[in-house]
């Protein structure tokens, strides 16, 4: 009996850990999809971009904490380019993302010097989970606490940003682009900025995941958009009546819930290569559920 309990505890801990790491990915999707109203597919490339950059930097002895802002900036640069393709060259939003995602696949391999996976297993290669901060906490929960600190810090900074004039402009741009122009602001620049922020967050998530799993894999990014978007929609749907929670909080909860669902499905005995199928099926379920709830809300009104 204690064995089962132990397994369950271990499982819920790893669900929390990975769910929280994916929460940053979900926050990125929240920015592009929900705030900016831009279906951005470049995230499938920027998530492993964050991982690749991190794996290479750590192997070269760069401080693992420093990898976080560097990954963010790399992702932001990629997002910015997606924005430029869309705004300056007038390519549709969907295609701009697909172009960027495709290009990034090679870019990620270039960064990893051609290898499709890199490992940062050696204890000599510092990870944020093995550093001095990790030593402060009891070893069992140190990973979880470090992830929690990172996610909480990012969330708080993001919430602060959304209250600034610049952040509010992002919100306006997604809801009413004409108003951005009417306020004498270049809506193209706002979109580029939003995409940079979104992909920066996604790459940051990739960076944390790389340090958590001790590895980078070029295929890791496939389905990032679906995972992130599913988390956003779950968070907003399941918790849509909870008025006192901020959207960002709901998205973080959504990510943990979604990851838990995947974990449960896998633990019901499905082999790991069913993963992407489960991801897609769960997302479809959520979309159907979401449409039902939204319909219900409309009929109420």
């Amino acid at each position, binding site marked *: 009996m204690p064995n089962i309990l132990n397994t369950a505890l271990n499982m819920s801990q790893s669900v929390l850990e990975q769910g929280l790491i994916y929460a940053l990915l979900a926050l990125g999707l929240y920015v592009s999809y929900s705030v900016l109203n831009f279906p951005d597919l470049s995230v499938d490339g920027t998530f492993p971009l964050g991982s690749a950059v991190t794996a290479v930097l750590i192997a070269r002895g760069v401080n693992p904490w420093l990898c976080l802002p560097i990954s963010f900036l790399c992702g932001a640069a990629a997002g910015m380019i997606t924005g430029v393709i869309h705004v300056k060259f007038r390519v549709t939003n969907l295609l701009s993302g697909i172009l960027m995602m495709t290009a990034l696949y090679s870019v990620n391999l270039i960064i990893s010097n051609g290898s499709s996976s890199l490992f940062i297993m050696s204890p000599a290669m510092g990870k944020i989970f093995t550093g001095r901060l990790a030593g402060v906490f009891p070893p069992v929960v140190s990973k979880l606490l470090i992830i929690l600190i990172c996610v909480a810090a990012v969330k708080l900074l993001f919430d602060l940003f959304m209250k600034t004039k610049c952040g*509010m402009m992002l919100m306006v741009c997604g809801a009413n682009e004409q108003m951005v122009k009417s*306020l*004498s602001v270049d809506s193209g620049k706002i979109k580029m900025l939003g995409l940079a922020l979104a992909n920066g967050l996604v790459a940051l998530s990739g960076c944390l995941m790389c340090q958590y799993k001790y590895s980078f894999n070029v295929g890791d990014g496939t389905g990032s958009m679906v995972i992130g978007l599913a988390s956003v929609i779950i968070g907003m749907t399941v918790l849509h009546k909870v008025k006192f929670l901020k959207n960002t909080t709901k998205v973080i909860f959504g990510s943990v819930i979604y990851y838990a669902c995947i974990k449960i499905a896998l633990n019901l005995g499905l082999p790991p290569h069913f993963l992407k199928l489960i991801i897609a099926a769960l997302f479809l379920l959520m979309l159907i559920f979401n449409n039902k709830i939204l319909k219900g809300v409309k009929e109420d009104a």
Partner: protein
Amino acid sequence: MLKLENIYKTYNPGLINETKVLEDFSLTVPKGQFVTVIGSNGSGKTTILNLICGTIFPNRGKIYLGGKDITAMTEYRRAKHIGRVFQDTQKGTSPNMTILENLSLADNKGRFYGLTPGVNRKRTNYYKELLAPLGLGLEDKMNVLAGSLSGGQRQVLAMVMCTMADIDLLILDEHTAALDPKTSELIIELTNKIVREKGITTLMVTHNLRHAVSYGDRLIMFHRGAAEMDLSGEARANVDVDDLLDRFNHISIESGN
């Protein structure tokens, strides 16, 4: 002062659906004048508004605002000097933000939207003072999302946001057309009040002939890309809705409608 000089505008040039909308069109609106513009569909009214606002650009000709050549200026740069209220009541406000947030953003127009707080609570009372005289009770709904307001309320909010900053020109693009008759009357009254109080140069396009004759100092009727009628002063004062209808019918018969 607004000046359009020898404007040419052709849609789809060289194609089978080529449409010449404006040919050698000129218009001068002195500072502070309130112009009402009427005209049937396809007469070129909207094209002219879009040219002035920079949504589209002329093939030839020059546009001046306040003595400055703005012909090649992008829409968002012009918006610093031009306020526009649309027929679509959704276009003037951001539905996912409260009245207070919408007003705060409009209050910052022309300045940098950086990393300072978006809402300055100290200005709340000033915003309330702007809204209170309009009599819609919007001043008590500062924390209500703009998206949950009625079309009329949103249009009033859009008007206030448009005229908050000092602008050289106000463009009203059939801004009462999507509203019910009662709200439409309310908005047109408020429009007149705001325009007169601030003395803003204004171009108001409307399909409501009574509004066209009752408000403004000058009336222009467009037909086939030209001013078929351009009345000001006494001639403008003596015109009534029936005169306009007669002229409209006359034009329609001419063009075989």
